[in-house]
């Protein structure tokens, strides 16, 4: 049974490596993100949002859903620490 886990993990890892071989090279100017998304942000971003900081307008405007998820992760982290540490204390008191 232990070897089954090893085999499954190795196979999944190999599959992911093979899949990543099909990705465009890092910084390739002809890759889809570089030829559609990035030029749009660089050329239209300031006109559309009136915010000069490119990092901020991509993070907080175009990818606002992603940032909402990040805030939820922080919130969940704090709540998990709260439940584990304060929960353990109230159990110890009993």
């Amino acid at each position: 049974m232990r070897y089954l886990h090893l085999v499954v993990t190795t196979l999944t890892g190999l599959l992911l490596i093979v899949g990543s071989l099909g990705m465009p090279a890092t910084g390739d100017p002809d890759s889809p993100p570089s030829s559609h998304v990035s030029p749009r942000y660089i050329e239209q971003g300031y006109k559309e949002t009136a915010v000069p900081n490119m990092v901020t307008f991509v993070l907080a405007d175009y990818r606002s859903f992603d940032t909402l998820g990040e805030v939820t992760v922080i919130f969940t982290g704090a709540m998990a620490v709260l439940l584990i540490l304060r929960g353990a204390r109230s159990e110890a008191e009993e």
Partner: protein
Amino acid sequence: MKPGERDIIIRTVCRLLVPFVQLFGLYVIMHGHSSPGGGFQGGVIIASSFILLAMGDGYDEVKRRFSLGALTATTSAGVLLYAGLGVVCLMLGANYLDYAALPVSAARSVGMLLIEIAVGITVTAAIISIFHDLVTFE
């Protein structure tokens, strides 16, 4: 100096630094539009000022200044504010989190400022909450 007693130099320096650290944290949140920064970084800076205060005066002294229930509520309030702004955009007839629908000038920029503030509130409260749990855990 008895054990447990804190040096007056350390206490004074920590107390003097705290307002400046908090002011800088607010600046980082509010100025995230046009310079490096934003809600995450500013929130951590503000939370670190509380940790600095705890290092100087001791955590019991800091603990008296806020209630745990309010801390947990504040952690949730930031996320709620963020998600609520998205719902406001929905009610104004646009897509979720499409700030262009807000009825102010430079609406997308204002929307970004509001969510940076919401992120800052959550991060500040979350870091202080985690700090409290780690410090008081036995």
